[in-house]
């Protein structure tokens, strides 16, 4: 199997060295960048499968890098931040980051998050039983990882696609917050409810004709979410 390429962006050389050593030891190919500008160059030049991005950097900070990368790429992004503020976390996720880890962190935790990101990128071994899903203009081709709404193609990040796929495959079932977090992200994410809220929001903005009044992904208040192919009026 091809080695996966990871770009690490941090202005602290000690952190860069720490992360490279650990990721290399686990079989990843590592590229590094010392600041935002370098990272934007590197991600265009090299084939990067995952980006680990420090938030606080001079000139172009992590938030800005994340925003710019998302304009044209759906590469998974894990934010590393020395700010533990919940607002920062939600802001980064809204902007398109896939995950958010607060410094200082454990190596095992980081490795688990890297694995989750790659899983979202599409592991061919977990192709769903059905090949496509179709409901009221929303078409999903699971094998090709392609989504259209009323024949208009929609670009989704790997995590967004993983969440949509899980909801579609289990359509008409109510999926609780915990079930979704564990299946789409992993066991260690069961308390990260805001991930779910942010990613459902991101999906709705991309898929729904009227995101405030969604017809595909329904909220079951206090419980979870579902894609209901019966009458949406049955669902509050």
């Amino acid at each position, binding site marked *: 199997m091809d080695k996966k390429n990871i770009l690490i962006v941090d*202005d*602290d050389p*000690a*952190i860069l*060295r*720490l*992360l490279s*050593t*650990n990721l290399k*030891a*686990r079989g990843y190919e590592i590229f590094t960048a010392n600041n935002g500008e370098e990272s934007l160059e590197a991600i265009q030049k090299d084939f990067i499968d995952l980006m680990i991005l420090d938030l*606080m950097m*001079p*000139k172009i900070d992590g938030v800005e890098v994340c925003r710019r990368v998302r304009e044209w790429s759906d590469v998974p992004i894990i934010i590393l931040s*020395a*700010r*533990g*503020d919940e607002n920062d976390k939600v802001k980064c996720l809204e902007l398109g980051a896939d995950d958010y880890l*607060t*410094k*200082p*962190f*454990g*190596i*095992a935790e980081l490795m688990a998050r890297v694995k989750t990101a790659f899983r979202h990128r599409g592991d061919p071994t977990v192709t769903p039983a059905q090949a496509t899903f179709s409901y009221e203009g929303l078409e999903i081709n699971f094998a090709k990882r392609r989504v259209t709404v009323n024949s208009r193609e929609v670009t989704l990040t790997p995590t967004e696609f993983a969440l949509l796929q899980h909801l579609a495959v289990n359509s008409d079932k109510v999926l609780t917050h915990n079930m979704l977090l564990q299946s789409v992200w992993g066991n260690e994410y069961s308390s990260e409810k805001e991930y779910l809220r942010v990613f459902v929001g991101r999906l709705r903005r991309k898929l729904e004709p009227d995101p405030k009044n969604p017809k595909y992904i329904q909220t079951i208040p206090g419980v979870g979410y579902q894609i209901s192919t019966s009458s949406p009026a049955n669902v509050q």
Partner: protein
Amino acid sequence: MKTKDNILVVDDDLDFLGVIRRILEKKGFKVTTVPSAEEALALLKENFFNAAILDISLPDIEGTELLSRMIELHPEIIAIMLTGHSSVKNAVQSLNRGAFSYLEKPLDPENLISIINRGLEKQQLVFENRKLISELERHNRTANTLLSVSQAVAQSLDLQKIIDAALEKVAECTGLEAIFIYLRDKDKLKFKGYHGLSTRTAANMPRELETASGVFSNLLEQSGPIIIKDLLRASESELSFLKNVGYRSFAGVPLTILGENIGVLGIATDFTQSLSPNNLELLTGIGREIAIAVRNAQLYEDASSARALRELDALRSEFLANVSHELRTPLSVIKGSANSLLQPDVIFDEQTRREFLVSIDRDADTLTRLVDDLLMLSRLEAKALEVKKKQHKISNVISNVKDHLDKLTIKHHLKISIPNDIPLVYIDEVRIGEVLTNLVENAVKFSDDNTNISIQAVYKNKEVIISVIDEGIGVPLELQKKIFERFFQGEGRKAGRRKGTGLGLAICRGIVEAHGGKIWVESKSDHGAKFIFSLPVN
């Protein structure tokens, strides 16, 4: 008739005087008769008469002459001239000189009374007009005073400025000599300003007045002024501070707004005084104007201190966020490196294990230094840094840290030039040594290997000016102030140079300012930087 009108009759014919007295007294007038102009003038100087009846031919002075002098003394007197046939011409002349009318002898009593009554009626009108005009003028003055006080106090939202302006305006408009203001602060009255008191008296004014009882308690409870006409006879001991410096009377006016008395305007004079109701009314009005302005200023002060507190709070939160960020960075290296060694799934080689340990060791140092810097900064900001100042030669201060500087500049050329005639400086040598070390360390961080770093000193305007000059990347103009703020991190560190705590220059500034000096940078991008600080010689 309210009071008997006073009539003076001057004629040298005594029988005639007797007749006319009877006629007039019968009509209710108070009559004085004299036979000569001289006697008449003597009376006129001392007394007021509503009307005078003058014979035009008198033995001593001409009646017309008497008329002139009389009108000079009492312009409003009603003068009636008595003439014989032959002197009608004179009578007409006397009308020109201000007489009200003339009558020919022999007199027709009816005619005389009617003329007197008409004259007195006219006089009454004059008096009433005059009273109205003076009332109008007084109202005008009151309105003008109030207006100018209210304008003066509305110029500012600064409490002290308002009080000073109000006092000055009150003095100017009322001519009162010694005035002062006390403002309520909980259950005390606090001295806030004065006008017309001697510096010594002002210095001896009580800073606080008790308001539990007595005059000041009453002034805070009631709506109108309190007047003490004569302090020498007054029993109020709380006013003795005025009596003791020679004042004779006191008037206190409450400063009232929305039914609440927020202070007292006090007036003292060195004669016994009784203020007229008009003046009291004016002072009460002034009290209200001052109260409005004072209350506005107090509200504004409260609002701005709340705003200042909010700003301080925001700064503190930002500082905490920054501290937390700066602490987490070395912590994450320490935690990550130790944690790497503990992972069961990978066994690192000897070399890598050592690298992790070196990282742990070095970032523990970084952490220590950060904590030290933070402590130093907080001491500087609380002005709690102990600065042990003594006379020192600046060259000795440099010698003390020379070893450390040499170590820092091992890849640079360090040049030190301190002229021998630099005077001693009064400093804490350890702290100034820290400033120098910090500046040299910065210079190293931002300049290439093998470039020059120099330390220079000059004596100028009673200050020793010390510069640390490098040939590095310089500091752009827009950052030349900002770099002295805490947690500011410059960009463009040369490869391999470790990031600092972002506190070094903030600490330098704190130390230099604690010595009464200044620190700044002169630089053009890419042409090196010159960090300069001044130390006062005395």
